[in-house]
């Protein structure tokens, strides 16, 4: 288990100073707009996938600590990764949010969400940005 104070610091840091924040106007980036049906988060995610590599991630929007921090953390995690590696991390993260036991070292700072499963009404906040990333990667295979 990650230390509680460390988790708190990670979440607050990413919430107040999100990484890869701000959208770009560039045709290489594909965008997903996530406006959750059950909450007020409204986030846009952009991915620049070149060949098999997730070259860059950008995001912006209105969100709570969980949605902002999880999107920020994952933007760091998958940047520079091969698509399959990024998808594997996202799958791991989904298992983490279900509260499944396992080794989540690879998720680095995203381990801060290891007890989020205990707040079922907030799990969706942790998913909103990451699901957009997953969809954008999967769609990139279709072309």
């Amino acid at each position, binding site marked *: 288990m990650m230390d*509680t104070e460390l*988790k*708190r610091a990670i*979440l607050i840091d990413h*919430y107040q100073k999100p990484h890869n924040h701000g959208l770009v106007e560039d045709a290489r980036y594909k965008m997903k707009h996530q406006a959750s049906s059950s909450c*007020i988060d*409204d986030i846009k995610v952009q991915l620049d996938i070149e060949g098999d590599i997730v070259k860059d991630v950008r995001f912006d929007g209105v969100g*709570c*600590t969980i949605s902002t921090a999880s999107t920020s953390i994952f933007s760091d995690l998958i940047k520079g990764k091969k698509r399959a590696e990024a998808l594997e991390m996202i799958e791991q993260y989904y298992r983490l949010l279900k509260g499944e036991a396992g080794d989540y070292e690879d998720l680095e700072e995203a381990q801060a969400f290891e007890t989020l499963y205990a707040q079922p009404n907030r799990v969706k906040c942790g998913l909103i940005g990451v699901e957009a990333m997953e969809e954008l990667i999967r769609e990139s295979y279709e072309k």
Partner: protein
Amino acid sequence: MFDVEKIRNDFPMIRNHPEIIYFDSAATAYKPQPVIDAVADFYNYRTVNVHRGDYPLSFEASRLYEDTRKVMKKFINARSEKEIVLTYGATSGLNIVAYSYGHFNLKEGDVVLTSYLEHASDILPWFKTCEMTGAKIEYVPLTEDGHLTVENFEKAMHEGVKVVALTFVSNVLGYELPVKEICRIAHSYGAIVAIDGAQAVPHAIVDVQDLDCDFLAFSSHKMCGPSGAGVLYGKYELLDKMNAFLFGGGANARFDKEGNIILKEAPYKFEAGTPNIEGTLGMKAAAEYLMNIGMENIVAYDRELQKYFSEKMLALDNIEYYNPKADVGLVTFNVKGIFAQDAASYLAANRIDVRSGNHCAKILWNAIGATETLRASLYLYNTKAEIDRFIEVLRDITLEKCVGVLL
């Protein structure tokens, strides 16, 4: 004499959850024992359909069900129980007006005048009606702090306006609209006025004859009754001329294989299908419960709580408080630097239940500049001690603590 401790004792939710401070009554209100008894009485002793069987229980259930119209007529001071349409709630009542009145009376170029204060239920039906008829929506401008004034209404009103669709009390800001003056002005232009009374009827003395509104829709569940029941009040001469909204059993007198339908008279023509009988009986018990305490006493207590609450809120410096001048016990705010839902989770961890979000009024941010807020809404069973506890928790709230409840 308004005895809140005695009132609290009437509500099993308070007895069964003494640890919870429930500040979300604008979403739905707790139910007192007489309401629960009325529902259980139907299930235990009179589970039969109404207006159907030739046996004593059906006759008895029909009589009790029809009595609801008399009680609701008294509750809002309608002229006759024929003006009381029993519905499934404010949403269904407002849809009946938009469809059964709007579709058949509006034409291209006509205007439906409304406001940014409206709940989705009072504006989406009119969007659809306008789409079907070619009528268009116009908005009465609000003042900077979100009030809809007589002056602004008068300026927005013109010959083209055929329907005025407004809420009585804003579900986000708790401001009461000057409905009586609005009706007078609208009528002088020949427009009709449809009022969303969902928030007002539980918290204000609503007298439809004095207001002279043409329609008023409200829900049982916000006035301590069961959900899935409500009332649409309409002036009888309007109801009489309107088509039905839902068609089916109970609302027609005759029909033949050629498709000729003779509808029953109002209000029955609007009540196709087996109604929510137990919910309606519960709503009757709720109206009786509130009238026994006295709406004037409830309103006075509500205002007293509002005043007390707003003074305490204004003394906090970590809060963005949007409606210190609310007319009902409803406090809308944000904690500086903390997203509404994070603050709501922290309050919930402290056993204080409030609502966060846009409260179904998704165009109001145009007026107040905040897309999401926290809303603490009170009712007759809340106390100053609960407000004190709420303020104490709010005073010490920090982002670190909010994140802490998620770890």
